[in-house]
């Protein structure tokens, strides 16, 4: 292998000296390179062949697309104002409560999922909770909770809190796993109890990141709260869904613009908070 590579390198150098320089390929091994290329082409052909498109329906939709663009030029905030305000209020309250509850619940799970401070059975249990919460999309979890708790923002809040647990606990556990162990030892050497160790050695080290991540998760939860309304879990998503099925594109455009504005605001402030804590 190395002899082959050396031969290739010297051939390359010779070609470069004759003015026929070529850049290094991204994937070094030619077998892999060609294999991936051919596999990609075969996949593309198979995939494109299996995609069924109803072109007549697409052509029909062109007019609607123009309607849509027109609606974005003239969004209608007024005629469904009450619905929009109610939906937004629900989304925002859902976002806040679910983030608070989710972070509070994520802290014990995160402590349990850190290998260096928790016993093995607890570690496995907490990792399992994290895996389940992270694999399923919020909307799938929302379907189940809507069946259990009925339509409305409560189901949405529980969904978002559940999703928050997985996200926060995983990152918190990783953070705890690579914290500076000397401080823990120092606090333990003073004869501190478990609580005191957590409070004075672990918590100060992970707190800045925890705050930053919570703010980031607040931002994500708002985006998700705009979606889970589709399956009946309340929030602005329900309003958006209704306006689309009523063909009121100008109202949908208004809602989308509001979502974009709020997300921008969240993102801007969350990047500020993160810079401030770190």
């Amino acid at each position, binding site marked *: 292998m190395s002899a082959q590579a050396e031969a290739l390198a010297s051939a390359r150098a010779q070609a470069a000296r004759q003015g026929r320089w070529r*850049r290094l390929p*991204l994937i070094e091994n030619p077998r892999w390179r060609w294999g991936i290329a051919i596999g990609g082409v075969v*996949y593309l052909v198979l*995939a*494109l062949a*299996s*995609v*069924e*498109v*109803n072109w007549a*329906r*697409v052509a*029909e*939709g062109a007019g*609607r*697309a123009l309607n*849509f663009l027109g609606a974005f030029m003239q969004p209608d905030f007024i005629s469904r104002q009450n619905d929009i305000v109610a939906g937004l*209020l*629900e989304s*925002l*309250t*859902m976002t*806040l*409560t679910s983030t*608070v509850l989710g972070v509070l619940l994520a802290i014990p799970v995160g402590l349990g999922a850190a290998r260096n401070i928790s016993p093995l059975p607890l570690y496995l249990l907490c990792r399992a909770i994290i895996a389940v919460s992270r*694999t*399923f*999309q919020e*909307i*799938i979890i929302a*379907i*189940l909770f809507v*069946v*259990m*708790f*009925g*339509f*409305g*923002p*409560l189901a949405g*809040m529980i969904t978002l809190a559940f999703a928050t647990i997985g996200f926060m606990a995983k990152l918190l556990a990783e953070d705890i796993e690579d914290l500076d162990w000397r401080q823990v030892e120092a606090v333990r050497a003073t004869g501190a109890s478990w609580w005191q160790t957590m409070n004075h050695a672990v918590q100060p080290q992970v707190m800045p990141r925890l705050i930053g991540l919570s703010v980031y998760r607040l931002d994500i939860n708002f*985006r*998700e709260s*705009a*979606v889970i309304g*589709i*399956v009946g879990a*309340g929030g602005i*998503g329900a309003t*958006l*869904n209704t306006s*689309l099925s009523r*063909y009121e594109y100008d109202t*949908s455009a208004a809602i*989308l613009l509001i*979502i*974009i504005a709020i*997300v*921008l605001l969240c*993102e801007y402030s969350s990047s500020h908070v993160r810079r401030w804590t770190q």
Partner: protein
Amino acid sequence: MPVSLTPQGLPAWQRRTTRAQWLQYAAWLLGISLFLLCWKVISDNTMWVFVEDAGRQGSDLLSRMLPPRWEYANVLWKPMWDTLNIATLGTAIGIMMAFPVAFLAARNTTPHPLVRSAALMVIVSSRSINSLIWAMLLVTILGPGVLAGIIAIALRSIGFVGKLLYEAIEEIHPTPVEAISATGASRLQVMNYGVLPQIMPAFAGISVYRWDINIRESTVLGLVGAGGIGLQLNASINNLAWNQVSVIFIMIFATVLVSEWISARVRHAII
């Protein structure tokens, strides 16, 4: 350091000044009242009658889901293939569109600040709208089907890939770029030989990462009619065939695990 004197005239250490302490109390009070206010809004909009029997509903649901109806898996291979196609083709189209946008949005390669802000606008609006909402819009425009799903995934991926890629472009080393431009290379040649080789590993990593996320997202696009296994999920839920739903859940779980493993392996090999 805030130090006050005890009545005996000895200095006593405090963690915070009195002012900071009061400010902190006020912040906690404000935060907790805001939380309680939000909780009240939610509680007013909730039918507590339905919540009371949540436990019964939950166990009822579980008993209907188990045992899964395994024969149903045979119906699911085609929708699963569609889901994979939505994710893969969508990612491919998305990164093709994200590539030029990222170059226009990076501070060191953009032709003009105005172009930069336009490109940033594209990235932000693509990122802030969830792919399900994109799919809802596209289903009304293009009609239900795989095509709407592919385009929804592509539109959502532009923002994600574009943002990470333009940050990677802004962090490149300037010396190779200077060296190439010193040879008298044109703007495009500088991009091609100075910038591109530096961002290629990051680009491949980002694309695979996004593909992994897109697999998860494409499993639910069918809920709004955009093709894939989500269509079957929606149909099974509407028929209250919960033992089919559990088969679909298991299938999604397995697919997501596999795609996550592949993506982790590829990223590990690149970086």
